């Protein structure tokens, strides 16, 4: 099934939830509302679209813009051999989004990573805690307002 057809059918089904489908460098980007993420993703995961693989999940911090954060999802369909990028905007005041951990198992760790690095809260995540940084680390390192060299040692360093 072609990607254009998938997007057409998606537009028919979730007409008011899709904010736009811009094309960049040959890739379609699906901009959607936050509350419809689970429905749209579930719809895409089923046959005949079969976007059965969550390739990647990350976040971008657009500091100084409103909404400030943007979640980026990459889905992959093995039978149709195509990728799809979905984006959801998040405002800094209400930094919450539905967790995909119930649909994909790797979403568990990927969402923990985003929580660790950006502080996004995932509703329905089984065990949301830091993954790369340690307990006692303050702040979210990949946010633009976190200084590059601000270190928070766990033990007393020599010299």
């Amino acid at each position, binding site marked *: 099934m072609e990607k254009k057809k998938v997007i057409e059918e998606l537009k028919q089904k979730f007409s008011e939830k899709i904010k736009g489908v811009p094309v*960049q*460098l040959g*890739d379609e980007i699906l901009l959607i509302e936050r509350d419809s993420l689970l429905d749209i993703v579930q719809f895409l995961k089923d046959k005949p679209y079969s976007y*059965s*693989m*969550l*390739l*990647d999940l*990350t976040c*971008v*911090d657009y500091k100084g813009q409103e909404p400030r954060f943007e979640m*980026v999802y*990459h889905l992959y369909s*093995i039978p149709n*051999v195509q*990728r799809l*990028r979905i984006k959801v905007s998040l405002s800094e005041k209400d930094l919450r989004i539905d967790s995909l951990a119930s649909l*994909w*198992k*790797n979403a*568990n*760790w*990927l969402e923990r*990573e985003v929580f660790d*690095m950006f502080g996004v809260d995932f509703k329905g995540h089984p*065990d949301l805690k*830091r*993954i*790369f*940084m*340690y*307990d006692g680390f303050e702040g979210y*390192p*990949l946010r633009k307002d*976190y200084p*590059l060299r601000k270190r928070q040692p766990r033990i007393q360093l020599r010299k």
Partner: protein
Amino acid sequence: MTTRIQKEASKESLLLNMGPSHPAMHGTIRIMLELDGERILNSEVEVGYLHRGFEKICENRTYFNLLPYTDRMNYVSPLINNLGYVMTVEKMLGIEAPERAQYIRVIMSELSRISDHLTCLAAMAMECGAFTVFLYNVKAREYIWDVIEETTGARMTTSYIRIGGVRADLHPGYKAVLKKAIVETRKVLKDIRGLLDKNIIYLNRTRDIAIVSPETAISYGWTGPCLRSTGVYYDVRKASPYAVYDQLDFEVPLGERGDNFDRYMVRMKEMDQSLRIIEQAMEKMPRPSPSKLMVEALEPAEAIKASRTKRVEKEIKLSPNLEGSERGKYLDILGTDKKYVVPPKEDTYTSIEGIINHFKFFMRGHGIRPPKGEAYFSVEGGNGELGYYIVSDGTDRPYRLHLRAPCFHIVSALEEMIKGHYIADIIPTFGSTNMIGGELDR
């Protein structure tokens, strides 16, 4: 600090900590186990001991400067990491490397893939007690690194693949070295198969241990040899061919059961295919165009001598430090657009135009500036789909760079893989996932 497993564990069971400083945990991973005797009831994997802030530091480097950081992501196959990053930026810039460079890229990434698989199997077998396999594999890897070193000047962290092509042309005598490496690697592969394939100790520890079904593998986002061992046909080189993979003939080996032994077997077969690809690429690679410039150039000493009497008209031959990176070869390997290619060293040292070009390339705020937008591009890395997601805001450094690390997805399934098995089964299972700290924790 109480971990999840401490809260969940029942009172009768035994809690055991493994790692991070444990010989089989490669120093960068920790597994907390809940045990009933020797059987694993539950486990929790903790990663992040090698988190080096790759993504943050890349936002503070220019597109050209952050190339060395990509080397150190998956340090067993650095050239594939270079290739993934470089091709993402090329996608944003809308450029393509010359054909000869494409073939060199394919050869280099296949050599890296072999060295990746050799290292993975060396560690896996050594931790099962087969030390000979480790020594043989490292020996074969040395031959492969010799080829890489002859051309790129470094053994591991090469930064060889550049935006717009590759850094230098292949070394003049590369064919002999490469052929020797292929012969030696084939010999070693045959030896390893002889040592392991029917070895009852190895079979007992790998056959039917940690079986992963295709559905689970897809749900965990597995790619690469681990996914193919479960029987799912997905290879980025076939699904969306990059470089010149569509012109080369190779097969994608698949497993049947998805256990540890299949993961070993798929890697072994993949190395055979990689060797095939290298041989084909060697044959098909276009010849370098004869470089006229190099013939007419003067040695610096001669030029100084001649300049005492009259103005020197000819080019001056200056060592560009790496063989095959002279200006005459740029057309074949690197393209000539001044916006994204470092000017040849001969120009930088001898002409005012060249030095301005050099200055504009490295000056802060200049250099490579992809248009505003974002791109995702993936290549087939040693562990699977290695994707880069780059957001550009039109300046000379990426606004956001995210790496889709295949290893991260594979290790996230470890808890499920070892559940219900014995403690001793962790070692081959963990070995077969090919955990690479730099890629996992970034």
